[in-house]
């Protein structure tokens, strides 16, 4: 294996053979192509606006990358968005919480929901897919029951800065996303925490024998996933000015699509935050670019599906050939 790696190093620089690099190249080609078709696509205003629209999925995709690297998955994120959104409105209106406290409360509910996932996954050893498919139903159901399907509206103006405002000309939530991307990227790349995620994903038993606290690490990432979903809920509520129990429905598949498109292995042990970001941007801009070129929504979905399969196919076969 190491001999192989050495041979690689002689043939081509390692970064060039990486999935993310190849994916980024595909992305750039696609963007230039779409830009040729439509002059309104590659404008700063449009790109920033797309950044605003992709923030919620982006926030969720970061801890999802961590989770998938460990060989786990979290399908309950969309339901946690719904539950947190409902709790934000409910606590503000029915408990009479001041809005800042309600925001913290909604975040806490998201974190708790993620913690429960992590707790049962680590203590009772329920496989993550099974646990989160069950809590997907449970959390969504709680959101409906607690809210009685009612919406809460009429938030104070300052709250909308988060979802609709700008700071230095950049959408507020996009700045938050960028900061969190950097933190998540560094945490995964440069810290023992990040290395332990890869260790767990490659071989959990070995990780346990090398004295890694596997359970605590898992508990942390599922809780982070819940927290990120809660944050996404707050951003979403601020953007659309209302809460509904069906918010965030289907986000789990959007987030997972971004992560796996970005080259994170669904079997665990490999993946990067940068790859996820490229996957996220690729899906969002492809949808947008096609729409601006006059492709209708149903056809766009088809193209996204083909693109998802083809880009993973191209990236992985190029990588394999160079190896």
């Amino acid at each position, binding site marked *: 294996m190491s001999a192989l790696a050495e041979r690689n190093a002689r043939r081509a620089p390692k970064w060039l053979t990486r999935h993310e690099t190849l994916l980024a190249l595909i992305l750039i080609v696609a963007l230039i192509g779409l830009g040729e078709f439509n002059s309104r696509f590659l404008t700063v205003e449009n790109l920033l606006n797309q950044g605003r629209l992709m923030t919620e999925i982006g926030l969720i995709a970061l801890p999802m990358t961590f989770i998938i690297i460990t060989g786990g998955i979290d399908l309950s994120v969309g339901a946690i968005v719904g539950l947190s959104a409902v709790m934000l409105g409910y606590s503000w209106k029915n408990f009479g919480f001041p809005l800042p406290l309600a925001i913290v409360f909604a975040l806490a509910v998201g974190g708790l929901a993620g913690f429960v996932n992590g707790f*049962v996954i680590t203590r*009772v*050893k*329920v*496989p993550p*897919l*099974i*646990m989160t*498919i*069950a*809590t*997907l*139903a*449970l*959390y*969504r*159901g*709680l959101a*409906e*029951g607690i809210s*009685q*399907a009612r919406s809460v509206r009429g938030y104070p103006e300052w709250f909308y800065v988060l979802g609709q405002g700008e700071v230095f000309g950049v959408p507020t939530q996009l700045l938050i996303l960028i900061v969190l991307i950097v933190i998540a990227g560094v945490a995964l790349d440069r810290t023992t925490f990040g290395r332990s995620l890869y260790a767990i994903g490659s071989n959990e038993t070995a990780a346990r024998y090398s004295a890694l606290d596997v359970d605590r690490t898992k508990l942390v990432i599922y809780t982070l996933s819940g927290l990120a979903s809660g944050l996404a809920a707050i951003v979403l509520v601020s953007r659309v000015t209302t809460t509904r129990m069906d918010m965030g429905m289907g986000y789990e*598949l959007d987030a*997972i*699509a971004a992560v*796996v*498109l970005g080259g994170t*292995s*669904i*079997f665990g042990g490999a993946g990067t935050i940068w790859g996820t970001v490229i996957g996220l941007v690729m899906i969002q801009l492809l949808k947008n670019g096609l729409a601006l070129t006059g492709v*209708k*929504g*149903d*056809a*766009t*979905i*088809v*193209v*996204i*599906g*083909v*693109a*998802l*399969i083809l880009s*993973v*196919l191209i990236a*992985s*076969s190029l990588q394999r050939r160079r190896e």
Partner: protein
Amino acid sequence: MSALSVTAAAPRASLLRRLASQEALLALAVIGLAIAVGFVNPRFLAYRNLADILLGNAYIAIAAIGMSMVIISGNIDISVGALIGVLATVSGSLAVAGAPILVCWLVPLVLGVVIMAAQGAVVAYLRIPAIVVTLGMMSILKGGLISVTGGKWITDLPQGFHLADLSLFGAPMPVVIMVAATALAALWMRWSPSGRAIYATGGNAEAARLCGVNPQRTVVMVFAIHGLFAGIATLVYATQLRVIQSTTPPGLELTVITASVVGGVSILGGVGTVVGSTLAAILIAEITSALVFIDVSPYWTDAVRGALILATVVADIQRRRRRAERGVRV
């Protein structure tokens, strides 16, 4: 790996241990829930109601059989809901266009096998993870369906088309198909070499290869069979009502996957049976109906159903863990 040892040990297993199996636990839950709800509202136990629960949800159980095989082989399929939508539309359109009924019934089976086998081939030979392939295929099928049909509903279906309205020896066809499909699949998986190969591939593909199983071919075969069951599920699904919506049934893939995993199919692959998934599909349908019968507020039904599914899953994992611990001691 564990599946192989379980199969080998099966004949020697005591009655008690067999009773404690996942299928028995689910069967107990199905019966226990019926009796408990019957106490609150005796109408729940009426033959008509119990039959309706099976009738209305047989297609989910049938689709879950194929899904279980896919999961046991170490893969997953997100596209099954969209596929069923597409197959139903194709079948219904043929019927309205005047094709012979038998053709209308056969085409979804063939098409299901072809589409799923193609996905299986991409997964097995091009080595793209199943979740990527099937997620992409879901998009393609979903968007393609609306692009082609414009979402126009199919009405005026010919009388003979409604397979689900027929009955065999007095039993309604959907239930007959569900039971037959489950039994055949269970026997095949347990006793045939190709059926056992699925467990081997899911348990440890490398070990399977060494034992003379071709994991790639097995994965393609599993997806093809899954496509066949999706086709059968479509027949029941599409012929039950007088309208085919020609869109994909919302969230059907998740319902099917839930039935499979609650049925004791470990998502890590290699463990589980299709009898469990059928029982789980019945249990979930029963819970949905029961919550209406015992007057749970409709705002809370989803939460209670979620909690019950969670409780079932946790109980099962606990039981399996305890058995594994005992196994280690022996």
